């Protein structure tokens, strides 16, 4: 239960903390003990990565981009050919006649309108169950069209930042929770779905389906802000949709899990991650157990799975994915740590 609370707290902006030594499981303590002083060179990491991903590089990114484009195209094709397979836009739709409602948009409408309609309720329940099964913020990285363009903007940002032409001003992550409360209150007080005015998800989704709008200028402005001033600012610090789906995904069986056994703690996963705080457990002495799921803020995008040189990060569907429980083998201690332990005695 504690891990779920911690996961929620991090979703709302709390920074992950270093666990006390007595919070680590005996197995984890033992593993970290054997890892003491373990060093790895860049060349070794590259070799390891090549070995683990020799069949396909960026496997999950490819799958994800294809899925995201396919879902958004399905809306377009369904409307253009009038086949009524997936009608509407991401804010609300009908899939083969079944109502679906974006949970955040539905929430804004209910708060502003102060009424719940049966059709909307059906849509909410359907989507709620869907994303509990599929992992909550999976919506963000696998469906939201803004996520894809922001990802492209991000690579441009990183390229520019490396040359000193762009900066990355960070914000406190808690600001997203503040926005969540602000937009909820604004909806109740003003009676308008205020957030929908600036939601790049809705604007992009409608532009893709119904044709370009002036509202795209706002989306372009956001992208420029992210490219030159702050990496992935909207998804990280503003978007309430992320929190809504994050909450839905707290108990989701589908998650990225971490196994520390082979981890080299080099941090390649954190470097590519949209929400690196969920991966702080890959820092040495941070994971309380050998095998752990990532927090609810994880968008299940799989970039870390692709980046990990040792396959220590993997997609897991609890109850379905078979996981080998490895015995902790006795390892020879590193020379450095031997010296350490002698000093302690």
């Amino acid at each position, binding site marked *: 239960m504690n891990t779920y609370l911690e996961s929620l707290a991090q979703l709302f902006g709390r920074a992950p903390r270093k666990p006390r030594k007595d919070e680590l499981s005996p197995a984890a303590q033992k593993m970290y003990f054997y890892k003491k002083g373990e060093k790895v060179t860049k060349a070794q990491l590259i070799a390891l990565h090549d070995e683990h991903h020799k069949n396909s590089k960026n496997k999950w990114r490819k799958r994800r981009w294809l899925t995201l484009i396919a879902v958004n195209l399905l809306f377009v094709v369904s409307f253009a050919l009038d086949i009524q397979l997936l009608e509407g836009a991401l*804010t609300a739709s009908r899939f083969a006649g079944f109502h679906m409602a974006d949970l955040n*948009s539905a929430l804004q409408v209910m708060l502003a*309108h102060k009424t719940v309609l049966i059709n909307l309720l059906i849509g909410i329940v359907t989507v709620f169950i869907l994303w509990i099964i599929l992992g909550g913020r999976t919506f963000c990285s696998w469906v939201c069209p803004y996520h894809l363009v922001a990802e492209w903007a991000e690579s441009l940002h990183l390229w520019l930042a490396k040359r000193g032409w762009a900066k990355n001003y960070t914000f406190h992550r808690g600001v997203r929770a503040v926005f969540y409360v602000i937009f909820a209150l604004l909806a109740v007080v003003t009676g308008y779905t205020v957030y929908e*005015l600036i939601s790049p998800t*809705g604007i992009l989704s409608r532009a893709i389906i*119904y044709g370009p709008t002036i*509202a795209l200028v706002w989306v372009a402005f956001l992208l420029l802000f992210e490219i030159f001033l702050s990496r992935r600012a909207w998804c990280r*610090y503003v978007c309430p949709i992320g929190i809504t789906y994050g909450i839905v995904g707290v108990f989701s069986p589908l998650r990225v899990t971490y196994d520390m056994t082979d981890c080299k703690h080099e941090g390649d996963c954190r470097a590519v991650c949209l929400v690196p705080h969920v991966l702080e457990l890959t820092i040495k002495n941070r994971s309380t157990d050998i095998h752990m799921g990532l927090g609810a803020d994880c968008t299940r995008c799989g970039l870390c799975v692709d980046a990990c040189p040792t396959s220590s990060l993997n997609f897991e569907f609890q109850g379905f994915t078979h996981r080998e429980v490895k015995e902790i083998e006795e390892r020879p201690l590193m020379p450095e740590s031997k010296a350490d332990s002698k000093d302690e005695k």
Partner: protein
Amino acid sequence: MNSSSKDTDSINTSSAVKKPAKKKTITRGPGRRAQEARRQFLRSVALTAGVTSISLLGFMPIPSEGKRQKLRPPGALAEEQYLSSCIKCGQCVQVCPVNAVKLDDIDTGFGLGTAYIDAREQACDFSCDGLQCVLACPTGSLTHDLDYTHDTRMGFAILDKPKLCLAVAGQGFKGQARGPDYEGLLRYEEIDRWNPIPLKDHPYDVEICDLCVQACPIEQRYNQCQDGKYPSGDQNQCPPERAIGLELIEEKNGVRHMKPVIYDGCVGCGVCEMICPTAEPSIIIDYDKLTKRPLSEQYQTKSKKGGH
């Protein structure tokens, strides 16, 4: 600032994580870390203020007193209710057989993504018969309390420019109502019961222009019912009142002429505005007025008070 913010984020390697720990032992008082934390806090406050203010710009184009910005699809709630309940999905757009429903842009503020109808470009001619947009609406922004076409109240037609009106001038009309380049669609029961056709494919030839009366969907249904042929074979589809008709009017100066007169059965669908062949439409939809009655009642109370 640049390097420190980079440390926490873009190059988030283990070495970068170790660095601040070392610095902590060197610097005393408000060290670089505390300074950066303070800056980050101020930036976060600025971000909150900035984004919130931008979102509130949506108020600017909203007219006061809940007046309608545009003609809304059939069944639309009162403007404020409509704006609060619309989830901006466009399902009403997708089901409309004449593509009358369109989505608003960001220049309408909180109206962004909500459905409207530009009657002059393409009016709702009810050729779906079943109020498809109302059925498609997932939030009830287009109220589900409607059952029949004549129950809708999108607005109310008014003869806006009687001086332009061909009927008032005693003129007829021959040809395509809106010219050869007009793309709008209209359903003609006698041509194709199920599919609307381009307006330009159906030229008219009348001695006194009565296109608005001829094309009115409510009038058509009313007349069918008078002939005992109920629309869709359902007597409930019969409008209880007429919507528009040409009447012989005698002006104060004794001049007699024909004039389109709008009755309380008008639902404000906008077909008259769409088909009106004058360069500027003589007849338009006032989408804040829903029937004749409140207007005349208002006039009566006003005249009593003001003593006009």
